[in-house]
């Protein structure tokens, strides 16, 4: 067993002023695991883009000097400490090159010393796992969780693929948040396939919504406004449903490249009064939104886990969700009880028809209390915290 329960978490994503919703799942994992540890320090390495490449030497020199005054450890969730490390980057580096920059900047932040913790847990393979391995003590145990939906891009880069193989070989344990992540990795690195396990994201199963849902009229979308999330199809599907029931409302939470296009389309459809765009919001506010809407619609094309759908069920809010990879596993056994699952297609009618099917069997055809109980056993802070502690501190693994 390790001498102490000091843990360092390395992550390229964590909620901050620029990206209030970014890395909420990492913060949830910290909240789930910090109780029961002596000390948890989160190192958030955040890329700071520099447009003018010629200025990089001056910026790096200034960065080194500034760190002495600007770098600090601040209190975070569940008694953990957060150290924010900006990483100046120019151009379009490969994932491996980025990982090298992250590792160098973390080393700077640590004053050239290794991470003092006995256990280092990294999120994502390269910008977390490699950074951790490069900065951990030789006797430290490095664990990695992979979440990425863009692994195909990572593995398509020769230097990144090679670095990924190195991370898999060197780390103490490696877990994916679902099969959509594990399978491409096992295929790319068959010799390491047995090492790749599964560990879920942690979800706050705190208080449920004050009032149970009585009718499915206030829809909520929560996620990035990008093609992969299927939010464009959602707007079209909502428009056809709204034609049949003018009392329907839709709140779209998030930001992304489709933001302006979606706003324009909503205006063109004459729905500006009933569709509300909120932009990005902090994780706590997102949970409040889930608890004040009637239905979470999650039309993603590819999802590795589907955190928001579990958050919705934890709050007692039904879901309409695509079979986009992760959600089938995440909801296994409670699909019908939690809401309605629909196929991934290019046709908005798939969403609208799914909605009407769900509405037809609501509320008697759902069992949200059972769905909540089953999922709490898998994904609650207590369940996921215990899984991590077993991984980090058990005698067998030491």
């Amino acid at each position, binding site marked *: 067993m390790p001498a102490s329960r000091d843990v360092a978490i390395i992550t390229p994503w964590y909620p*901050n002023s620029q990206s209030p919703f970014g890395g909420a799942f990492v913060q949830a994992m910290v909240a789930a695991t910090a109780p029961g540890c002596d000390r948890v320090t989160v190192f958030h390495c955040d890329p700071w883009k520099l447009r003018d490449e010629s*200025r990089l030497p001056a910026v790096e020199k200034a960065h080194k000097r*500034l760190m002495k005054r600007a770098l600090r450890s*601040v209190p975070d969730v569940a008694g953990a400490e957060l150290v924010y490390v900006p990483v100046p980057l120019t151009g379009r580096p490969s994932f491996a090159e980025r990982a090298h920059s992250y590792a160098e900047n973390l080393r700077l932040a640590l004053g050239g010393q290794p991470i003092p913790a006995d256990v280092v847990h990294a999120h994502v393979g390269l910008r977390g796992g490699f950074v951790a391995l490069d900065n951990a003590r030789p006797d430290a145990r490095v664990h990695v969780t992979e979440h990425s939906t863009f692994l195909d891009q990572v593995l398509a880069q020769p230097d990144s693929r090679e670095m990924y193989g190195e991370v898999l070989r060197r780390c103490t344990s490696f877990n994916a948040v679902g099969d959509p992540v594990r399978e491409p990795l096992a295929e790319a690195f068959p010799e390491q396939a047995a090492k790749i396990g599964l560990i879920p994201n942690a979800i706050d199963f705190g208080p449920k919504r004050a009032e149970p849902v009585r009718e499915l009229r206030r829809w909520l979308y929560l996620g990035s406004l990008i093609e992969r999330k299927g939010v464009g199809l959602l707007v079209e599907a909502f428009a056809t449903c709204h034609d049949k029931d003018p009392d329907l409302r839709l709140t779209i939470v998030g930001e992304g490249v489709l933001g302006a296009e979606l706003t324009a389309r909503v205006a063109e459809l004459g729905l500006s009064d009933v569709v509300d765009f909120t932009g990005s919001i902090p994780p706590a506010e997102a949970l409040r939104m889930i608890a004040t809407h009637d239905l979470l619609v999650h039309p993603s094309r590819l999802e590795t886990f589907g955190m928001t759908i579990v958050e919705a069920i934890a709050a007692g809010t039904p879901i309409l969700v695509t079979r986009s990879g992760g959600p089938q596993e995440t909801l296994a056994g409670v699909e019908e009880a939690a809401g309605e699952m629909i196929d991934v297609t290019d046709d908005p009618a798939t969403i609208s028809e799914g909605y009407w099917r769900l509405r037809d069997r609501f509320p008697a055809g759902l069992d949200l209390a059972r769905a909540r109980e089953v999922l709490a056993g898998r994904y609650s802070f207590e369940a996921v915290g215990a899984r991590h502690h077993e991984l980090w501190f058990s005698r067998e693994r030491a």
Partner: protein
Amino acid sequence: MRVLFLAVGGNRRRAVADEAARVVTEGGRATVVVAKERSWLDTPFAPGVEVVVRSGMELRSPPRSMEWLLLFRLPRKVYRTVGRGPLRAPVSLMGRLHERAARRVQRGVVLPLLRRRHKDGPGVLHGSSYDVIIVGDAASMPDAVKLTAGASADEVRPEVAYSLAHLTG
């Protein structure tokens, strides 16, 4: 609280605009240094946030540079040159005493005088006129160093951080 946001890179606009708004909401004074105002058209600043364009600003006034040269840089050079061999220990002691006295002079005499005289006069930014400097993006890092270089190593103000959320006080 007087907070200076350095944001000449203009690519972390949301963080800077939101945090500047928070300063004003809480009754403080927020000044944001940008490269071009038009880059921020899609990220409007809250009423009360002062926006200045970097190209029209000088980061340290000549008197402040002179004060830094006379109080610290020249004496340090002299002590380094003289303090060799048997003179090393006594000169080192003298150097430490000098630094302590120079910091007192800087804080007690020079800075109040400069602040009174310039009062952040047009075209000059003084790091010492702010309680906090937020380094908003990578391109602003060299400016942040220039603004704080005149401060002695243990000077508390201004605090420098990457985000208001990182201030513990």
